């Protein structure tokens, strides 16, 4: 019975050889893609069907889950980092998903508040923004682990930083408005990436030199797949620090800034 076969043999009609190994299954050792799944007739076997559903359910939950901004604020405080909470013009999750334009700008109250705060804060080098983006747990689990070493390294290099800005329902471009209001030389935004089936908590980091309204994606640099199984947060912090220092030295960001001598992309986790 193919569908209830307790062994992982994929050649259900052609059992494994004398050594008990199924050569098809060995293909799975070379990639985390869903290869060597076997078949019932020509269709997915029950186990593979439910595995897929579970992965999709987790990714869906990741998109829908509420962002614990307060917890993030407390975590930062524990590491001696001040933060400030703001809001975008997207008022709820559904609006955020279908109106990317609203996630790119602050709401009126936050804009006014930030303008007032900016006067007291004065000129500084870098504003770091954190948002749930498309996966709140990415920000909750990995943002502090990336920010703490990054701040330490940049302060060591003489950089001055604004308090960390926590802004739920934010899109990458939000940093342009925030950065301009503050007069920040650089902005860096950490936010949950579009979750893949195998990566429901991946954090992305995007920075911009001299942020302003007419900046586009071509003016930014991105470090993505920040999570323990991908690019671990501490390694991401090192990479970001290198890139930011280089960006400040050259006075550019985006395609004009080359990513050289940096860690190679991580190897994917083997299929379990």
């Amino acid at each position, binding site marked *: 019975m193919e569908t209830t076969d307790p062994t992982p043999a994929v*050649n*259900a*009609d*052609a059992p*494994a*050889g004398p050594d008990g190994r199924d*050569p*098809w299954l*060995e*293909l*799975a*050792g*070379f*990639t*985390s*893609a*869903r*290869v*060597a*799944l076997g*078949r019932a*007739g*020509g*269709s*997915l076997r029950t186990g*593979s069907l439910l595995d*897929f*559903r579970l*992965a*999709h359910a987790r*990714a*869906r939950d*990741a*998109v829908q889950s509420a962002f614990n901004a307060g917890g993030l604020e407390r975590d930062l405080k524990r590491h001696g980092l001040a933060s400030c909470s703001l809001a975008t013009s997207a008022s709820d999750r559904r609006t955020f*998903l*279908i*109106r*990317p*334009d609203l996630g790119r700008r602050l709401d009126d109250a936050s804009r006014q508040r930030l303008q007032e705060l900016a006067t007291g804060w004065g000129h500084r080098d870098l504003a770091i923004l954190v948002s749930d983006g*498309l996966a709140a747990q990415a920000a909750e689990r990995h943002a502090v682990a990336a920010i703490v070493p990054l701040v330490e390294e940049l302060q060591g290099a003489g950089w001055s930083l604004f308090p960390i800005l926590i802004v739920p329902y934010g899109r990458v471009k939000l940093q342009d408005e925030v950065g301009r209001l503050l007069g920040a030389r650089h902005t860096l935004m950490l936010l949950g990436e*579009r*979750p*893949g*089936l*195998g*990566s429901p908590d991946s954090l992305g980091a995007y920075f911009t030199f001299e942020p302003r309204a007419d900046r586009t994606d071509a003016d930014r640099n991105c470090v993505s797949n920040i999570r323990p199984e991908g690019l671990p947060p501490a390694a991401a912090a090192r990479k970001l620090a290198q890139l930011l220092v280089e960006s400040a030295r050259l006075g550019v960001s985006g395609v004009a800034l080359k990513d050289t001598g940096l860690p*190679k*992309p*991580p*190897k*994917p986790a083997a299929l379990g």
Partner: protein
Amino acid sequence: MSHWSCTVGAHSHHFGSLRELMAKATPRRSGDELAGVAAASAEERVAAQQCLADVPLRQFLQEPLVPYEDDEITRLIVDTHDAPAFAPVEGLTVGGFRDWLLRYETDGGVLAALGPGLTPEMVAAVAKLMSNQDLILVAQKRRVVTAFRCTLGLPGRLAVRLQPNHPTDDPKGIAAAILDGLLYGCGDAVIGINPATDSVPAVETLLRMLDELIRKYEIPTQSCVLAHVTTQLQALRHGAPVDLIFQSIAGTEAANKSFGVTLALLAEAQAAALALGRGTVGRNVMYFETGQGSALSAGAHHGVDQQTLEARAYAVARRFDPLLVNTVVGFIGPEYLYDGKQIIRAGLEDHFCGKLLGLPMGVDVCYTNHAEADQDDMDTLLTLLGVAGCNYIMGVPGADDIMLGYQSTSFHDSHYLRQVLGLRPAPEFEAWLEKMRIVSDGRRLLPVGRGHALLAHGND
């Protein structure tokens, strides 16, 4: 600019231009709402459709939705319009055209002859009036056949693009996914890799790997590495074995500019690939991908609805006699197509519009995790497209693309569709599958023995 109005019950609806009328007549989708061009109410949408039904097809030749002076795609559409081919329908309105398309007498031959006389805007307009079953019925009449090392699009056939992506372009990981897919009878449309890195050396490495595999096992298929067209051209000039040239395209000059392409660049690429003469049974060397919403995403939509702009992208594709065109229908996200219902509708529209314009349409039946959709919605669209005579679909291991982070259709899905509709692979590829003892009678997968050459290759 034209002005249109129509009375529904006691209420009169006015539309200030053909562009506005087209947008408001479009079945509801989030991308048009995001662009601010959608109908404000369900009634206004149907009023716009009633109004659109009375618009003469000729109006689209007189009133370009994107200005001729500003846009090379409009110029391409207008300058290459074939008036004699248009003659059979030139006196019809959009509504009359729908009725004409549904007639028994309007068969595949009639539609093939008509194609050069149609503009993307005419085809988009009639699609807005059509129900899902209309889109299926008419598309099914129009077979578009193309060839390179095998023949695609024949009646009773369904091809599959094998999509063996890997997050770090690891050749062994990619090879494992290719072998897995071949053993499910996939790969006749193309073995096409989306590279994680858009660099010339990376693309050359992958092209050579694919070429060696295809030559070693004499697989009657073609390869492609879906990097930017300029990267592929550089690899080609370094002597890399390029079968097909790929490029993403959109429906306005400005959107294509944001992709870094022009018509001239695409013509240069086509000429370079043709000069290699690597096809054995045909000379279709281009592969294009499209998708509703790309122009708005690039800020280059000119106030035109996304379904019409998508059809305009097909005018670009048509110019270059492609082997393959597919709409990556649900990839862009819920801000353009919100849920399974919108994705299914858009997939059927795109397939219909492409076919009517004479393109070898495939569909990447897909969604992202932030869209309100799941694999059951994909099963539905997949089945509908099979009935509609779609040329090819994607084959991704377990439907989970680990590099692009979205869900498409699996090797198993393609086998399901072939089973349930009695569809077979491309004829040359089917013969190879039988020779390799992978498939019998074009329909059933055979048990793969330990000694099978492809398994041995993967474990080398």
